[in-house]
């Protein structure tokens, strides 16, 4: 970051810095983009955000169809818009990618003992995973192993899954031209070598760029607050936080588990405006947890770094790993991640 200008001592937000505003409001984001383009300095107002309600989900998200997306750990990447990508050419893309993968593997770049070279690549769209009608359809890429024996089931084992989506991506959609398809959020599950090969193919074919999406402690605390705020019929997991203490020989990890109903009760006592989450509420929620911990253990958690947040809705790790547990709030979780991805791209 080139923000350290020796000749000026005041903070000047230039376009190379990323003014981070963590709030929804397509019009507000538009304004921000305008001002960034005009090269004027811009300080965001205190963030507000809507809690992902059940009613905001599209009705056609079939729980059965998205079940394969839940309970899996996904590694997050942000993706720049794809050039000349067409939903009608999916079969063509499957064929090309298949050929590419076979060629790469035969080159010996990713040879593992006992690996099956007979793989099949499938591109498919996933309907309903979008925020507004303007968002492009999400699509899925799967690598399946082709079974050797004809008597076995034709559907091979899924070796690798990756999917691209865009939820409420209005700010990005407005800035790109017609030739581009904006799907800024990419989630991958499976061997790292496959992710690398697929990434290379996409980068070469569509002139885009993948970069790993890390989630910092600030965003993790927002996620913790938003997901605790979600109303759940029954809780499947305890609410857990993990902090990393920076100390010299090896880092120390502190794990703090709360009963989810207690966490919800705490949130309800902090929460004032219905339907919205503010920065003050998130800070107060986290401060309550910190002061409770301090009272018992005399450790200042606020001096440590929040690394992992786990609730009944979803769990997220700072390295950019996410696991979604609840289909009701799938869109809400993806919306926030899409926003983070868009900020990373911009």
């Amino acid at each position, binding site marked *: 970051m080139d923000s350290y200008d020796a000749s000026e001592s005041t*903070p000047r937000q230039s376009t190379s810095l990323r003014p981070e505003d963590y709030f929804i409001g397509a019009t507000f984001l538009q304004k921000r983009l305008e001002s960034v383009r005009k090269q004027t300095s811009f300080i965001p107002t205190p963030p507000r955000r809507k809690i992902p309600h059940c009613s905001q989900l599209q009705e056609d998200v079939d729980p059965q169809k998205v079940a394969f997306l839940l309970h899996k750990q996904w590694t997050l990447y942000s993706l720049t818009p794809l050039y000349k990508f067409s939903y009608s050419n999916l079969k063509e893309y499957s064929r090309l990618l298949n050929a590419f993968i076979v060629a790469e593997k035969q080159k010996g770049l990713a040879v593992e003992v006992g690996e099956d070279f007979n793989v099949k690549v499938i591109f498919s769209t996933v309907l309903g995973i979008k925020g507004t009608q303007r968002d492009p359809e999400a699509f899925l890429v799967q690598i399946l192993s082709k079974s050797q024996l004809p008597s076995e089931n034709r559907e091979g084992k899924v070796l690798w899954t990756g999917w691209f989506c865009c939820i409420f991506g209005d700010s990005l959609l407005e800035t790109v031209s017609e030739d581009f398809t904006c799907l800024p959020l990419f989630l991958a599950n499976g061997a790292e070598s496959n992710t690398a090969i697929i990434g290379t193919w996409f980068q070469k074919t569509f002139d885009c760029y993948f970069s790993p999406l890390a989630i910092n*402690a600030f965003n993790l605390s927002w996620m913790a607050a938003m997901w605790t705020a979600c109303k759940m019929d029954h809780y499947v997991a305890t609410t857990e936080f993990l902090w990393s203490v920076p100390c010299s020989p090896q880092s120390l990890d502190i794990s703090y588990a709360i009963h989810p109903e207690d966490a919800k009760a705490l949130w309800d006592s902090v929460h004032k405006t219905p339907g919205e989450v503010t920065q003050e509420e998130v800070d107060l929620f986290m401060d309550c947890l910190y002061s409770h911990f301090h009272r018992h253990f005399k450790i200042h958690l606020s001096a440590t*770094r929040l690394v992992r947040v786990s609730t009944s809705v979803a769990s997220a790790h700072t390295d950019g790993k996410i696991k979604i547990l609840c289909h009701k709030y799938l869109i809400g979780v993806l919306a926030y991640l899409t926003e983070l991805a868009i900020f990373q791209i911009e």
Partner: protein
Amino acid sequence: MLKEDCTSELKVHLAKSLPLPSSVNRPRIDLIVFVVNLHSKYSLQNTEESLRHVDASFFLGKVCFLATGAGRESHCSIHRHTVVKLAHTYQSPLLYCDLEVEGFQATMAQRLVRMLQMCAGHVPGVSALNLLSLLRSSEGPSLEDM
């Protein structure tokens, strides 16, 4: 900062929080630099606590905020906006420096020593208050939005 050349005697006193113990005889304080680590909320809370113990006359140019850790975005627990607001509330300049990087440290040290000289009155024609108003005018219209 002590490595920098300075015509007068330069003394640096480090403290984790204010107020400083009053039992010790110490020379006049010319500049207070509050270092806020963006990775740690505790650092911000500590700074806010300490600010309450600072005499009002210091805020006429003798206080400055230094935010460190902005380079490692993935480790930040505090939004940059929070420190900007803090600096604006106390009408004092905010500097950014990644203190972990050697090169930036040296540059920042030079700048702070220069500021210190002005605050101590060692630069003819410029006082701490002059410096403050000079810095403030280059910040632009954005602060009015806050």
